[in-house]
């Protein structure tokens, strides 16, 4: 006999529809299913389709939200902050230069502890102009107090966005869902859509702990002495710690409702591996093929795709890496230090690791290149791969 929840899930499976849509569309749909109240946004390639579609949803009445057209990304985030401070569910999307322009306001959202959700379509930075994928835009926002996810399929983008609202509202931190420019944002893939009532059940309205309320006047962000300031800032760090556990709980609940789950790190053939690849986004996914081919040739490889960058899943990384040879792929660079992901991973390892900077400015990273990198890894740090087929 099936339990109530199993019946419910079966029903969703049968009644829910699968659509073939782009990553951008997955985001728009998720914002609609999550019933965002306020969307304030400014267009930028390759994100524009997200907010275009949401504007359409609002215009034709499919989505009961206020769409605010603003004059810049800085203003988009400022409007989301204002909306979220009143207790509304606020959403925006951006990319690259747009995210950089928001930088100041990102700290404000984190410091105010507002559960804003934002999709960022990863794109390289100017100059020279380039509209293709790189992780440098979002990794430059590392210290702003935002939870950060990195996705590798359109289904994962949809599901993570829904989850992000719940996680953000439970720990009172803003959350950023990253998807890669063009190779996800403009790529058509199947997305299984849930029933709206299932999403409503998973994501009920939650009263903000503190909000702007005319009946109970208060303020956000007043002047503060060190004694209070330090406590407010420690609060952000404590909330990040709390988020580590909450993210796992929300994932369990999500699996119960929708039948899919996402660990902070997705492991593929890591357990018996002698070499483990660490990567984020589609490189982490493409690496599965490299791992299969390497194993056919007798190289025991595995891949750990890091989905959650903030809070950084350091304990999981330590245990996955134990006793293995480590190879890290970065699609970004902190000039003067090297790959950001490799720097972060090395900070929790007690041994050397090999690392590569790949796919800069959208340079294609086929599994054959990943495989070559694994084969010739010899502990070198941040070797740059500057050709598609090195």
């Amino acid at each position, binding site marked *: 006999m099936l339990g109530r929840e199993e019946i419910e899930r079966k029903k969703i499976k049968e009644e829910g529809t699968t659509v073939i849509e782009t990553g951008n569309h997955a985001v728009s749909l998720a914002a609609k299913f999550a019933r965002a109240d306020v969307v304030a946004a400014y267009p930028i390639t390759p994100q524009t389709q997200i907010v275009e579609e949401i504007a359409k949803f609002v215009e034709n009445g499919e989505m009961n939200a206020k769409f605010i057209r603003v004059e810049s990304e800085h203003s988009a985030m400022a409007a989301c902050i204002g909306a979220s401070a009143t207790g509304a569910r606020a959403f925006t999307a951006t990319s690259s230069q747009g995210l950089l322009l928001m930088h100041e306001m990102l700290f404000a959202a984190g410091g105010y502890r507002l559960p804003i959700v934002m999709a960022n379509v990863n794109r390289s930075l100017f100059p020279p102009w380039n509209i293709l994928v790189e992780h440098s835009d979002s990794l430059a926002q590392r210290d702003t107090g935002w939870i950060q996810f990195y996705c590798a399929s359109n289904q994962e983008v949809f599901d993570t966005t829904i989850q992000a609202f719940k996680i953000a509202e439970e720990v009172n931190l803003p959350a950023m869902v990253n998807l890669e420019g063009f190779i996800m944002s403009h790529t058509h*893939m*199947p997305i299984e859509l849930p029933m709206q009532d299932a999403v409503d059940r998973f994501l009920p309205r939650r009263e903000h702990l503190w909000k702007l309320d005319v009946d109970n006047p208060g303020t956000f962000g007043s002047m503060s002495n060190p004694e209070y300031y330090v406590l407010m800032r420690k609060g952000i760090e404590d909330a990040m710690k709390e988020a580590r556990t909450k993210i796992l709980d929300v994932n369990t609940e999500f699996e119960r409702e929708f039948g899919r789950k996402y660990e902070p790190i997705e492991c593929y053939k890591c357990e018996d591996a002698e070499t483990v690849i660490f990567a984020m986004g589609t490189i982490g996914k493409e690496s599965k093929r490299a791992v299969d081919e390497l194993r056919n040739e007798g190289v025991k490889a595995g891949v750990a795709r890091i989905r959650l960058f903030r809070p950084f899943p350091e304990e999981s990384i330590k245990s996955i890496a134990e006793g293995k040879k480590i190879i890290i792929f970065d699609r970004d660079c902190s000039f003067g230090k090297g790959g950001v992901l490799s720097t972060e991973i090395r900070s929790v390892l007690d041994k050397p690791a090999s690392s590569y900077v790949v796919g800069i400015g959208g340079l*294609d990273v086929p599994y054959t290149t990943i495989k070559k990198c694994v084969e010739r890894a010899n502990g070198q740090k941040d070797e740059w791969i500057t050709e598609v087929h090195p």
Partner: protein
Amino acid sequence: MMYEIRFHGRGGQGAVTAAALLCRAGFLAGKKGVQAFPLFGAERRGAPVKAFARIDDEEIVLASQIYEPDYVFVFEEWLIEYAIEGLKKDGWMIINTKKKPEDFDLDCKIATTDATGIALSNNLKVAGFPVINSSILGAFPKVCEEIKLEHITQAIKNYWPGDIGKNNAHACEQAFNATEVKE
């Protein structure tokens, strides 16, 4: 088995949408893993464009471009020299042309159909230019057993509800019937 398909056209001819339609047809044919993406995502009318589609029984883990396709679609004859690059030894080239497969001296299997003529006869034009994506896709079921004509026409009708879809599906059927192949 995974099919990797590459489209070579010019901006405005509908190569990007052709890839999107073919992956939808693959899904309707029962394939779990389908994917379609353009090379640059920047649409420029008249410029050479590439688009890609993958169709597989399992979820697709690849996100990189296709360097050794099983099938290539050629929207204009002069693109053949680009399309042939990396095409697998037993791969198929599907060419939009009035010519017959025998008229081409190429080291691959060939299918031909007059997609431009069929698009024009069905008045499938955008800004005065023939849009040949729905027509040229009609050749695919002739060279790939697993995807049937009805999967493609259904995908077209789902993508463009109403008369536009019907007209495009009709052009697709005509192109299917007009396709000639040489193994």
